[in-house]
């Protein structure tokens, strides 16, 4: 009968389409983003962060970067604590992405110091050799529009102060996007919770290694440390490491866990062996040099 009656076919098709839609799209609104998944420490974006988020959208960063860490071993090791629904309640739109040409950014906030981001955004390959990310240094030239940002905050219903708005006059687009990147995933204190506590005595397995033994570890230093501490450990974004006087164990702890307050990332996911190689390279390589 429906094969001879177009109106009936249209009605039936609509009903059939609406069944799955109702169950999987309409019903979830009753449980998602309710008190049940609220996290009290998650706060709305500040005017500067929200503007940075809108710039992230404008430049289509989501085409190459995802923003959800899945509860999988390799993923939590690589990026950090897996993502929770309650962390996204202020995200309009969501920016989870679908492709990781670049790494996931859900836990980027606080991983690096601001200075790293400014340099990396302007010239990605100076900080990350081999990267195919476009340069965004030109964003420094564009100033923000506080009036427009205030309108956005009103539409979103996010709280803001007049000081925050007037401060925007001194900021450019780069400041905004860095402020946003530094907020990503940092509303829950996961970084502290994820820190490894080292108990008992730890001993340097490579103590007394020769210059030749350490030579291949230079690559590790260049890939992980040189962007911030300089090709020759002379320091730049991070401090000068030449002649560093920390104990082996202290240095190991710092490289393994990072320094959350100082913006130094943790390199624990390289594994203890590589971290020890780095410690020895940083501390002893130049001392053992023959000339």
């Amino acid at each position, binding site marked *: 009968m429906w*094969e001879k009656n177009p109106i009936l076919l249209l009605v039936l098709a609509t009903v*059939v389409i609406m069944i799955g839609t109702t169950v999987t799209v309409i019903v*979830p609104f009753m449980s998602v983003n309710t008190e049940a*998944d609220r996290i009290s420490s998650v706060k709305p974006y500040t005017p500067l962060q929200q503007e940075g988020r809108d710039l992230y959208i404008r430049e289509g960063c989501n085409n190459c970067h995802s923003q959800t860490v899945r509860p999988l071993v390799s993923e939590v090791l690589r990026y950090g604590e897996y993502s929770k629904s309650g962390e996204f309640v202020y995200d*309009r739109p969501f920016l989870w992405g679908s492709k990781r040409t670049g790494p996931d950014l859900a836990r980027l906030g606080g991983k690096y110091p601001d200075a790293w981001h400014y340099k990396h955004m302007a010239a990605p390959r100076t900080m990350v050799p081999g990267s195919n990310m476009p340069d965004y240094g030109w964003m420094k030239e564009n100033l923000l529009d506080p009036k*427009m940002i205030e309108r956005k905050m009103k539409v979103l219903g996010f709280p803001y102060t007049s000081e925050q708005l007037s401060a925007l006059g001194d900021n450019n687009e780069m400041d905004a996007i860095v402020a946003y990147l530094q907020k990503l995933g940092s509303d829950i204190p996961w970084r502290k919770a994820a820190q490894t506590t080292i108990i008992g005595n730890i001993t340097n397995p490579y103590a007394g290694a020769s210059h030749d033994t350490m030579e291949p570890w230079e690559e590790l230093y260049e890939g992980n440390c040189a962007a911030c501490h300089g090709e020759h450990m002379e320091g730049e974004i991070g401090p000068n490491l030449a002649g560093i006087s920390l104990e082996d164990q202290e240095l190991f702890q710092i490289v393994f866990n990072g320094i959350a307050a100082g913006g130094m990332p943790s390199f624990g996911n390289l594994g203890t*062996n590589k971290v020890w190689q780095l410690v020895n390279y940083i501390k002893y390589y130049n001392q053992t040099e023959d000339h």
Partner: protein
Amino acid sequence: MDKPQYNTDIVRSFIHWSVLWGLVAVLVGVVVSIQMTNPELNFAPYFTFGRLRPIHTNAGIYGWGVGTIFAMFIYIAQRLCKVRLWSDKLATFQLWLFNTTITASAITLLLGYTTSKEYHEMEWPIDVMVVILWVVFSINIIMTIIKRKEEQMYISLWYMMAALVGVAILYLVNSAAVPVSFFKSYSAFAGTNDANVEWWFGHNAVAMVLTAPPLAMFYYFLPKSTGVPIYSHKISIISFWSLIFMYLWTGAHHLLWTPIPDWIQTLAMAFSLMLIAPSWGSVINGYMSMKGQWHQMRENYLVKFLILGITFYGLQTLQGPMQAIRSFSAFIHYTDWVPAHIHMGTMGWVSMISFASIYYMVPRIYGKELYSIPLANLHFWLVLIGQLIWTISLWIAGVLQAGMWNAMNPDGSLTYTFMETMVEMYPYWWARTFGGLLFLSGVLVFIFNLVKTCRSGKETVPSGATAEGRV
């Protein structure tokens, strides 16, 4: 018997424009693929990967895909209903609104006005244009069907009508937003809800734009090209209703392991697997319709496009459900495997069927024979091999990268840094660009062949007699 005077002018215009937008989509695709290997070819602020990639996808889906759908719906509906299109004026309005919308989309995306929602990036004023466009189109098609002279509605009309309501529902819900200005809006939904709505839209846009309409084309143009009817009417009925029922449950398979509630993920996974049945219903129906006609694969270039197209549809609808399984998704999602999956669908299935449909319609509209069948065959091989190089290289890349992402040392640490895995992708990305260039050259051969057909193709019998093709 008196043949009604069909409106073929509007079909012709839609074909011209859809092919042009198709060319744009493929060209921009090649450009962004080169930007992935050569980042210095990003020219800020307008010509960066982040802004160009949505132009590639939207020109492909809406310019080439929907443009061809418009042409084909209007062509087929008139013939299956044995009446002229309900309103020529509405159709002409629709043509120019369509082109204005696609042009406005390309310009605003270049300028950075985007919602960021995949396959729905355009800001709200363009959403309004799309809604008007779809309403105008739907009214015209539905009215044509209502005043039809043929009582029974053929399979193609079912798929077309389902697409009309499906797209309307999906597009309206997913575009819900609060405007801040003419160029900026915020989604009406937040976070996890927004993700769930977006991928319900995203996956069902595949159902209602890239599956139902190409199936309508396939069910019409295959029997027209071979001269024998579809194998089983019963399979068609079962496939149709189960397809449009099951698709809507599966959107969350794009969001496995994310904070979306687990039960939605499980439903999405289960329904994705069940979808194999209706999808393969159409594939088998197509293959069985070739019974006794397989020699036409050698003799009839249209059949080659159609059968390869439905074959890639079959492969696509096996690979898709496989990716929707939690454990496999955990491994493969976010890698280059995923764009390879999409491109088997778009380059292998939708485009193959669209090429065949256009090859079928153009000579009949112009009353001329196709300029060159050898060129059509060359076109076939270029787009087929181009697509295979494109997809196979990125499947390998995806498995490689997934393996490296998950590799762990005996002490429980990760073996590779992210960058160590990313730099491994470069050779495969180069291969992909090469495949894309082959596909592009195929499209250029196609366009050359069409232009030559219009300009200098041999006249067939008086055009009135051919307006309907073979019955």
